[in-house]
């Protein structure tokens, strides 16, 4: 893939292998050109491997927004970047710089600082760029990234390219203004509020132009889309094709989250989000084997820590004011730790290459190509190991085992809302939330599990398994798959699983 290609005519002839999703390697980064691989290999949001080891943080310095999305309520943070209904502590650029340095000194694994809200970073140019400019100078070992709805992007590209910024995320939900008008009720453009299709048209043009300009500057572009069933779900395949053709290195599809209590248009009007199955199917079509972002957790604008965890409470402004950070010293320490992690990752990589048999099955699965693929859920608290109690899991990693090996599919959050009636106790609802999140899976791997959930899981047709506690995930998943073949469990078909098979 040529990163410098500029092409705004989505031609049909671009089929075949022109997109970056082509390729069937088990290593999700291997299809990327070396220079991009180099840029993303320690970025927790882009590398499934790295996100177990490296951490990212967001600072909330950008409160204003210049558009309205139907899945967002501006009482809360930008819904493109956080789960809806979240409010971040707004920081001044000066506070943000202090916070970033404090976190980087205390959590040396923190390699990436992003500005993602609570509004649109590029609708807050002074605040966003002051933060970036100071960090590029004062903490040059931190990578910077920014997310945007794209409206103000073309005008900001020149300035972006001056800072230490190599990743920009654009949320693109459509390339057709008819569809856009059903997602964006208005934009603020050239000192006017512009409603409906006309506004959507301008937004789409700016997004596409911004994407092309960034690619031409050699800045990595990731595209996020929100999947809204009945509105843009079919259309996103087209979006995916176009943005990849223009040089986006990654297209990530996220589910719409809409609840009436968020007070959003979609929430109040009863627009539903996609089911896990629908989401997975579209993600497969849009990203193929390129599943780098499947572990995206839609983190909040002031999130701190490894993906999926938030240590923000340790770094509130009043605590940070008390800290005395010597960043020069911290940088030395950070470099040593980063080196250590890089070595550990390299070691793992070598082991994986040597033990290719782990991902490409060697036992019964190898000879029995006709066995259907099986989805398994894993409870983990990081490090690529099965090391979490079922009851503590707030999310599960979903893997697929088949005769082609093991591949990471997605993350599923445990729905923590109590949506039941009076008889629904808190515990019971959390448990049924977990079981709902595991729909379609046949096995759940965890370090430990209680007696009660064990029974309920079995009833739901999901086999709990604690035998592989503290083992590496992929190896355990393959060994359970081999065992299922050996014990004849895959001889019976499992109704819904046939449609998942490739």
């Amino acid at each position: 893939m040529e990163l410098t290609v500029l092409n705004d005519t989505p031609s049909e002839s671009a089929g075949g292998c022109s997109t970056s999703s082509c390729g069937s390697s088990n290593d999700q980064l291997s299809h990327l050109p070396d220079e991009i691989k180099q840029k993303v290999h320690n970025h927790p949001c882009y590398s499934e491997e790295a996100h177990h080891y490296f951490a990212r943080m967001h600072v909330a310095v950008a409160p204003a927004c210049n558009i309205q999305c139907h899945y967002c309520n501006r009482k809360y943070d930008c819904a493109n970047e956080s789960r809806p209904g979240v409010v971040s502590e707004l920081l001044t650029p000066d506070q943000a710089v202090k916070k970033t340095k404090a976190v980087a000194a205390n959590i040396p694994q923190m390699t990436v600082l992003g500005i993602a809200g609570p509004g649109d970073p590029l609708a807050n140019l002074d605040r966003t760029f002051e933060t970036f400019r100071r960090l590029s100078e004062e903490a040059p070992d931190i990578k910077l990234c920014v997310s945007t709805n794209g409206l103000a992007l073309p005008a900001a590209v020149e300035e972006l390219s001056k800072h230490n910024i190599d990743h920009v995320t654009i949320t693109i939900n459509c390339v057709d203004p008819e569809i856009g008008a059903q997602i964006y009720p208005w934009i603020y453009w050239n000192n006017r509020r512009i409603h409906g299709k006309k506004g959507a048209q301008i937004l789409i043009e700016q997004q596409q132009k911004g994407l092309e300009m960034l690619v031409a500057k050699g800045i990595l572009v990731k595209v996020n889309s929100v999947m809204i069933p009945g509105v843009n779900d079919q259309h996103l395949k087209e979006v995916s094709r176009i943005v990849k053709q223009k040089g986006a290195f990654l297209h990530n599809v996220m589910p719409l989250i809409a609840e009436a209590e968020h007070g959003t248009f979609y929430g109040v009007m009863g627009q539903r989000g996609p089911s896990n199955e629908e989401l997975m199917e579209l993600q497969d079509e849009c990203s193929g084997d390129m599943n780098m972002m499947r572990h995206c957790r839609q983190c909040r604008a002031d999130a701190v820590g490894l993906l999926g965890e938030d240590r923000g409470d340790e770094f509130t402004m009043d605590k940070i004011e008390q800290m005395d950070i010597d960043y020069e010293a911290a940088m030395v320490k950070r470099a040593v730790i980063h080196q250590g992690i890089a070595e550990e990752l390299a070691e793992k990589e070598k082991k994986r290459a040597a033990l290719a048999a782990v991902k490409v099955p060697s036992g019964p699965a190898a000879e029995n190509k006709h066995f259907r693929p099986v989805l398994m859920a894993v409870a983990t608290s990081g490090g690529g190991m099965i090391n979490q109690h079922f009851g503590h899991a707030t999310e599960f990693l979903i893997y697929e085992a088949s005769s082609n090996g093991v591949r990471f599919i997605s993350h599923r959050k445990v729905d923590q809302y109590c949506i039941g009636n009076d008889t629904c106790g808190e515990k019971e609802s959390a448990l049924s939330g977990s079981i709902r999140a595991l729909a379609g899976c046949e096995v759940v791997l965890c370090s430990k599990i209680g007696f009660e959930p064990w029974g309920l899981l079995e009833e739901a047709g999901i086999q709990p398994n604690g035998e592989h506690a503290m083992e590496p995930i992929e190896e355990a998943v393959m060994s359970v798959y081999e065992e299922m073949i050996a014990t004849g469990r895959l001889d019976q078909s499992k109704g819904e699983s046939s449609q998942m098979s490739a």
Partner: protein
Amino acid sequence: MSLSIIESCVNCWACYDVCPSEAIYEAAPHFLIDAKKCTECEGDYADPQCASICPIEGAILDAAGESINPPGSLTGIPPEMMEKAMAEIQAR
């Protein structure tokens, strides 16, 4: 004459950045417009800028005290749907 900001303001700073008269200032519990400085954008823009970017219906009033962005005008949610949804949530 001057526009004004009332309590439904969510302090998003958007109006502050676009006011040509520097009439808007940060205050607790929400942003305010300095009536002496506000020009209603006359001579600068066709539409009052604060009211053209504010995402919150009802937060900005015109000189006569009327909402410039009444319920439903920005979100597209019909006011009766909003009331119904909120009543259902209250009832839980």
